[in-house]
């Protein structure tokens, strides 16, 4: 591999024209369509959208982790190096080293038959060529950084001897062993207790400040995005429908779907927490996407053009973009 020449401004991750299809007996499922975005060094990008909107599959494509029936096309560059559909050996120089991923379910994401020590040291031995002892020492230090008490003793334990929150900490420690430039966190707290959720998110942000790594944070909790992300991508039916700096998206959503998401967020009012509105209707059928705008069946603003023509993602300036035929929307009251 040639050493990529990159400027300070070059993104850690650059995705362009990404399409991900799954072959099924009932036909192809278009999980991701024409997705393009970049993550700058040290940036936290939030990815939101309802279940099935393609959030995870974007990053499964990026990491080369698609199910057997999945095919991705387009371009994925990690600090300048193209890795989409690269040979596995080439991909393995990037995964776990320059780019790591943690998953939603810490209960099943660790290997139940191997000690935490084995699962951690193998990463350092593979990527850094460390010996067993040095790797174990570095792993213990990393476990201490993710605040696992008695790390020196507990590293010899098996995953089932840890609680859910502790397992997610182990996953995070494992992901950070090689000092990646990008950490992909796919709903890292969804499976955890509410109090533990906050602790894990705090930990992630603290680690991010300490290391300067970029984070891609997948979630359907807009509240998490509000607190942690710099920029947001909103996914609908496998496409990006809106993209904006986080402060703007809460103040002035520019896509009806984003607006719906914001309205369905639980908010504090005089009566305490209330869930205001939910978006009615069903997510689109990815096997047979409608012509025009995929959101039109559920959109209160839909008009003739919406059925005839699919809106492209177009820039609104100031780092914003959206895919909608409407004139720009005003501020939320």
């Amino acid at each position, binding site marked *: 591999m040639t050493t990529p020449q990159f400027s300070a401004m070059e993104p850690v991750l650059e995705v362009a024209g990404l399409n991900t299809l799954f072959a099924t007996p009932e036909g192809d499922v278009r999980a991701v369509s024409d997705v393009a975005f970049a993550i700058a060094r040290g940036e936290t990008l939030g990815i939101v959208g309802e279940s099935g909107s393609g959030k995870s599959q974007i990053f499964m494509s990026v990491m080369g982790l698609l199910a057997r029936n999945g095919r991705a096309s387009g371009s994925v560059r990690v600090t300048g190096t193209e890795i989409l559909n690269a040979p596995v050996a080439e991909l393995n120089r990037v995964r776990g080293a320059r780019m790591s991923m943690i998953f939603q379910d810490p209960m099943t994401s660790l290997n139940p038959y*191997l000690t935490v020590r084995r699962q951690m040291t*193998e990463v350092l031995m593979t990527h850094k060529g460390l010996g067993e002892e040095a790797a174990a020492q570095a792993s213990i230090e990393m476990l201490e950084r993710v605040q696992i008490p008695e790390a020196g003793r507990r590293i010899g334990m098996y995953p089932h001897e840890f609680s859910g929150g502790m397992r997610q900490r182990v*996953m995070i420690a494992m992901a950070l062993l090689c000092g990646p430039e990008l950490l992909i966190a796919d709903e890292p707290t969804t499976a955890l207790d509410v109090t533990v959720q906050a602790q894990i998110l705090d930990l992630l942000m603290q680690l991010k400040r300490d290391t300067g790594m970029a984070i891609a944070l997948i979630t359907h909790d807009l509240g998490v995005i509000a607190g942690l992300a710099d920029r947001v991508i909103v996914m609908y039916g496998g496409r990006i429908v809106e993209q904006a700096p986080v402060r703007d998206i809460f103040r002035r959503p520019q896509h009806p779907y984003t607006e719906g998401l914001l309205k369905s967020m639980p908010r504090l009012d005089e009566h305490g927490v209330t869930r205001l509105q939910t978006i009615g209707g069903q997510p689109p059928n990815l096997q047979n996407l409608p012509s025009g705008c995929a959101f039109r069946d559920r959109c209160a603003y839909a008009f003739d053009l919406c059925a005839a023509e699919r809106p492209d993602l177009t820039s609104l300036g100031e780092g914003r973009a959206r895919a909608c035929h409407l004139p720009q929307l005003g501020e939320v009251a």
Partner: protein
Amino acid sequence: MLSYFIRRLAGAIPTLFLIIAVSFVLVRLAPGGPFDKERKVPATVEAKLIEKYHLDEPLPQQFARYVAGLAQGDFGPSFKYPDRSVSELIGIGFPVSLTLGLSAIALALAAGIGLGIWAALRQNTWIDYLCVGTAMLGIAIPNYVFAPLMTLVFGLMLGWLPVNGWGEPRHMVLPILALAIPQVATITRLTRASMLEVLNSNFVRTARAKGLPEMVTLLRHTIRAALLPVVSYLGPAVANIVTGSVIIEEIFRIPGIGRYFVQGAINRDYTMVLGVTILFGALIILCNLIADLCYSLLDPKVRYD
């Protein structure tokens, strides 16, 4: 671990005792007796025989006598071969059966695991379909059908292999195949299914996400976990091979204890049938115990202490 093994061995004694008791009663329940021949022996001779074998004693007393003998490793005298003890006969036949059984198990494991892994890694290709299809046949056709079929094709039609006898390696080919093939088929299916499940598991996804070399992901993370169900199946597999060997030894005229068992059953050779049954029972118990131990070594969630 050792103390666990010893405790489990001790725990197996009641099971074994139950096997002994039930077989003892069942053998006596079978109609006919050891001295009912076409040519009736003179009454005086029969009385002598009955006395010699203590058949005149009440059953509980006979049972006690038998168990006391067993405790000293004595399976009693054979009814058919009055000058030889059952222990002696088993001593001659057992090595033959053991060779046959162990070879069949080894073949079943090697071929079953190998084919299962191969099929899973080539899921939905012709290799996979071939492995699965053959496995289905292997499971569907019982070995007492398979054995004569192989004899017919390889022994009589093609003349490649001897159809019976014992002593040379070429004598072993057909019986081992006949005994192993149903187990190869079952283990292939088991391994394939379990491999596919593990390949789709979250922890193998994590191993890939960590950028481990494919060989490490396959051997350390995938195959190791996928073999657990195969280890659990080891006990039943041994039981199937042991019972299968009775039929196979008869078909191929192999001088193992399976044949003694069949002959013993025909002749109402009580001690012979009992001896072989108890030996089989003990063997199956032991193999299940070994399988359990292997499992606990592989799965840290199982802890015995």
